């Protein structure tokens, strides 16, 4: 399968660098944008499969970016990486824009799923989504779908 690309958006360069280090050995491409506007530019230039964005950023904020991405690139799997959890706007956006997961900062300290595992799962989610879209007959015949999985 062709390599997938994950785009990270955060206004803090140190955050992006730490993520780059963390995901250095992972089997997918990673790219970075320091603002929502930069992210949209990158989306025009290359295919992106998973988007991970911060919420509070100067200029376009994360929620606005998520809305545009949902509209223009509905296939992209969206995730949020943010230190802020308690605004209702954010919660609404997560629900409405179909955000796959909210990753709270700090992301590598919390108990539970590792950061890399989360990204991996997002890529799997994307692949599964594409597979389902490509084989509509499987949807019609659950038996066939069951067999093909085996």
């Amino acid at each position, binding site marked *: 399968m062709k390599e997938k690309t994950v785009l990270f958006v955060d206004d*803090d360069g*140190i*955050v992006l*660098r*730490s*993520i780059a*280090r*963390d995901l*250095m050995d992972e089997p997918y491409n990673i790219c970075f944008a320091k603002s929502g506007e930069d992210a949209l530019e990158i989306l025009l230039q290359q295919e992106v499969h998973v988007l991970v964005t911060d919420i*509070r*950023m*100067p200029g376009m*904020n994360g929620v606005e970016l998520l809305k545009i991405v949902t509209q223009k690139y509905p296939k992209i799997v969206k995730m949020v990486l943010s*230190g*802020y959890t*308690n605004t209702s706007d954010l919660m609404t956006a997560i629900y409405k824009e179909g955000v796959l997961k909210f990753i*709270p*900062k*700090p*992301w*590598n*300290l919390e108990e539970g799923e590792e*950061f890399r595992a989360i990204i991996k799962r997002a890529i799997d989610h994307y692949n599964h989504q594409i597979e389902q879209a490509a084989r509509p007959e499987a949807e019609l015949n659950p038996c066939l779908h069951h067999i093909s999985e085996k």
Partner: protein
Amino acid sequence: MRISQRLNLGFLAIAMWAAVVGHISLFQLNQISDPLSRSIPGSLESINETAYLEGLTQDIRYYDEVLTQSVRNYAFTQDKEWEQRYKNAKSEFDTVLKEAIDKGTGRDQGLLSSANKAHLALVEMENTSIEFVNNGMAEQAVNILESSSYWDQKRIHKQNIEDYALRRGAEYDEALANSTRIVSLAMKRTQDITEYSRRLVSIFAVVALVLALGSGFLIARSIYIPLKKLKAAAAEIGQGNLDAQIDIKSTDEIGRVAASFKKMTDDLKRTTTSIDNLGREIADRKEAEHNAKLACKELEKANRELKDMQSERVQNAKLVSIGQLAAGVAHELNTPIGFVASNFETLERYVSKMRKLLLEYEDLIGQIQISEKSELLDKTSVINKTRNSMKIDFILEDIAGIFNDSREGIKRVASIVQTLRDFSRVDQLGNLDTYNINDGIKTTLSVAMNEVKYGIDVKTELSDVPEIICSAGQINQVLLNLIINAAQAVKSRKSDQQGTIEIRTYATDYDLVCEISDNGPGIGPDHLPHIFDPFFTTKPVGQGTGLGLSISYDIIVSKHNGNLLVDSSVGKGTKFTIKLPLRRKKIKNESEVSRHERENSIICG
């Protein structure tokens, strides 16, 4: 009927009566003047006429005598003067006689013409006599005049004239008598009428008097009786009987006065009733006041309890705001901790890779003495492959980056913690610090950074202001409150315009002033008077305590003798102004604080 109308009617009756009387008097006067003007002049004229004729008669007799004497004297004296006299008298006589004949009646004319006939005969003889005299024959002349024929004619003439004169005299007397009778009749009549009029006038006068008295009495009665009733009623009302009835049904002025009086009485009654009610009300109020006093005491007690509770709540609110602050600061901490942790993990991986590689190198070094050269070379190439696959070159380079980034992260954490410590310097009332508000603003802005960092342009214009003695922690709390409010206001507005918060500091002669203004939506005039009230909030339930500004007010106004002013206009923004006295009197104690009036310092914009 009105009194004025009644009076008018009375006067009209009297006037009419006077008119009737006047008219009758006039009629009577006519009765008097009619005979006077008609019968009396007639009688007077007949007197005149008869008198004239009488005069003529006298003249005839006179001139006849003059003729006789003149001619005789001429005959005897031959004096020419007598001739002349005779001629004069003759023409006079002729004129008078002619007139008498013309004016005379049938019988008179008969007498006179007989007299004239005799006269003519006489004249003829007398002329003859005069001729004789003139011819110097005086004797003949006297003879003619002495002749019997002359005297016969003279006698006839005289007889006729005398008869005529008698007739005239009788006629004159008759006319005079007639006239006298008429005048006396008229006089008697006048007297009668005058008497009659006098009687009439006196009767009329009496009737008029009776009429005037009667109508006067009636009118007076119609005024007096209701007035008497009114007076009685007034006296009765005066004695307190407000139910006194006034039995006046007329529609005249008195009736109206009575109606007004009645209305007044009714009003008085009502007023009295309301006064009674008022009295009762006053009594009630007194009781209510007493109750209110009791209630007030209870309220005071409740108030004390509430105050205790309030300070508890204020304490809670402080905890809440500290909690909010902590949450905000925690968010601020999340990012550096996040990347430091991530870098730490990466570093861990790097170290484990390097350790693995190091072990390989150690193994290689251990094998140098016991292994073949070709074996060693193989091993070296395996190690190099591993090293490349591990991206050791990159790792070695990146380790410096990790340390730099982590150091930065740790610095950020340390800075945040330091700010927090600066910000919440010991918050006890007695603890006063030397405080520079510009430093306070900088610290507070750092703490509030997570609120104001994005999308808001914070402009500061901080003048070189003197330091003041105050409770730094408390002032910082106010600054934080106002800055966060401003940030939230700016964010809540719908416009695309760049949100700005402007912070200015400057000093006047007495005050240190700090202005914090935003271009948010502003505060509506219905909210503005309440913004300093405890628990007043426009934020959704659970998002604001409604105590932020209340506590700020308490800190600035009550605890620091300063002033906290707000100036806001909807759609333009809000400006809060903190004024702190440069010289501090003393810290107010709690009881003074509670008495402080806070409305004075609110300025609505």
